[in-house]
């Protein structure tokens, strides 16, 4: 395993702004790791992602201090084509990246740019359309799709490239549960088969805690909390401060603790919660 992303003491300040958006942030992500980036709007999540992509400062002008490595590349001075071989991003608003006139072309276009053979392109297009649930819509115009379908298409077009690192900015925010499950399955398949490193920004926590290796919580340009999901939710998370809510089963536990109930550990998943809540009632029965 090598290090996929390494950030050392990063400072970012947009041109014309007084304050830094990223304030001395350090982060290391291993190849194949699935990291969830969380925090309230405006905490610097998107700025961090754009800096890893090199979009900051190449396209969006900003003062950048500190070191960023993406495998053996420095995205701050590498060319877009070099970076694109390693890392791609799915934006929060799919309309920002849909550029062609048909669903098929939307996925095939970047593959053609990379010079892949036609049969390989066709195979990959069919594969990703199947996985994101857009099969049969190859000839439709992306503009005619629903919000959720557009998001699925944006993800599909990036996945077809099979990058080593995928950055997902709220990949499922406009998807319904079935769409979310399909995208989740797809991400997990990518990890399994291609050891893709994933950095996701996502507010929907129940979706995340089951699958991610690590949660990184940002606030005001810095990392304030970091660890596996179990560690992160072991203390009460306040949505107003962090921008996200804990899993509902953890929220139940926090409330019960306030009422004097003792917990061996804070549950983060449904099955764990069932064991713990039943355990508490069983124990009470033994002593009553």
């Amino acid at each position, binding site marked *: 395993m090598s290090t996929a992303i390494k950030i050392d003491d990063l400072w970012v300040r947009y041109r014309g702004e007084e304050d830094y958006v990223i304030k001395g942030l350090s982060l290391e992500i291993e190849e194949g790791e699935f990291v969830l980036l969380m*925090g*309230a*709007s*405006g905490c610097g999540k998107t700025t961090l992602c754009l800096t890893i992509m090199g979009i900051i400062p190449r396209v969006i002008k900003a003062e950048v201090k500190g070191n960023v490595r993406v495998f053996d590349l420095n995205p701050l001075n590498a060319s877009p084509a070099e970076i694109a071989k390693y890392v791609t991003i799915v934006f*929060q*608003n799919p*309309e920002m990246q849909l550029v062609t006139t048909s669903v098929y072309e939307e996925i095939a276009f970047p593959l053609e740019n990379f010079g892949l053979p036609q049969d390989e392109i066709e195979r990959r297009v069919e594969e990703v359309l199947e996985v994101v649930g857009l099969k049969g819509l190859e000839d439709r115009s992306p503009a005619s799709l*629903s*919000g*959720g*379908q557009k998001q699925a298409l944006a993800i599909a077009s990036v996945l077809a490239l099979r990058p080593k690192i995928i950055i997902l900015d*709220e990949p499922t*925010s*406009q*998807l*319904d*549960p*079935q*769409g979310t499950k399909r995208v989740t399955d797809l991400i997990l398949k990518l990890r399994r088969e291609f050891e893709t490193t994933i950095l996701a920004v996502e*507010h929907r926590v*129940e979706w995340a805690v089951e699958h991610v290796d690590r949660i990184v919580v940002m606030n005001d340009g810095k990392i304030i909390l970091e660890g596996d999901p179990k560690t992160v939710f072991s203390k009460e998370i306040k*949505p*107003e*401060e*962090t*921008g*996200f*809510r804990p*899993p*509902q*089963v953890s*929220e*139940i536990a926090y*409330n*019960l603790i306030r*009422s004097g*109930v003792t917990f061996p550990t804070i549950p983060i998943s*449904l099955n764990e*919660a*069932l064991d713990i*809540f*039943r355990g*508490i*009632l069983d124990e*009470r*029965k033994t002593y*009553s």
Partner: protein
Amino acid sequence: MKERPIVEVVNASYAYPGGIKAIDDVSLSVEPGEFIALLGQNGSGKTTLAKLMNGLFKPTNGTVLIKGRDTKKMTVAECARIVGYVFQNPEHQIFASTIYEEIAFGPRNLGIPEEDVKRRVEEALKFVDLKKPTDAFPHLLSVGEKHRVAIASILAMEPELLILDEPTTGIDFGRSLQIMRLLQRLKDEGKAVIVITHDLYLAAEFAERIIILKDGRKFADGPTKEILSNKNLLTDAGLSPLQVTLLSESMKNYGISENAVRTMEFVEEFLKVLRRGYGSRV
């Protein structure tokens, strides 16, 4: 005396040019003071139904009445005076060069005198708690702020029913709570609110009535607790039940009496069982 519903949808269908039927024989009515969450999978017809209710679309079959008047005989502006629609993506809605102009546009279009427009803009901004200079360029605001400008610009029309299309998508949970609390206040003031959402957590905590669409048809319509605690119904509609519902269902044999849909419902129920020594298991 019962007030007349704000909107009555009567056996309405809507087919897009080209024949795709997005809404299929839907009937429902919306009363003043209701807080409704409209749920359903992507492509189930939620946005189309919203646009039928505010007169942007006219039904291809059946009728939509706003305060008893057929929307086919009303202009879009007449409809918008009563039913406001906040777009899913605020970028689709925001076009003016200042926040003030953005919010003043609607009331001006209604022919409201300028001094009254000014009052409406100020009230709307105060309501959404946006503390930016009113001459600021709206496109440079954050996503959450743009959402609030979009809501304010509809509020300034002083509609009786506000329909919001996924108002919490793409904004963090703290801000989502703020928006839902803001809508709660509108509801308390007697306005009706319909929120289109995928977020069952927020729907459970805030809405009093749930409508679920599936393949363009009305699949469920009833009190929040009744609909969201029905696991099979949700699954059939392609929705995932909340953790709290699954948890309480799996603990029935421990004396948890009913399927909870809100966090605190389960907390209170659990404490009750715990305090009575949980003798009711057998």
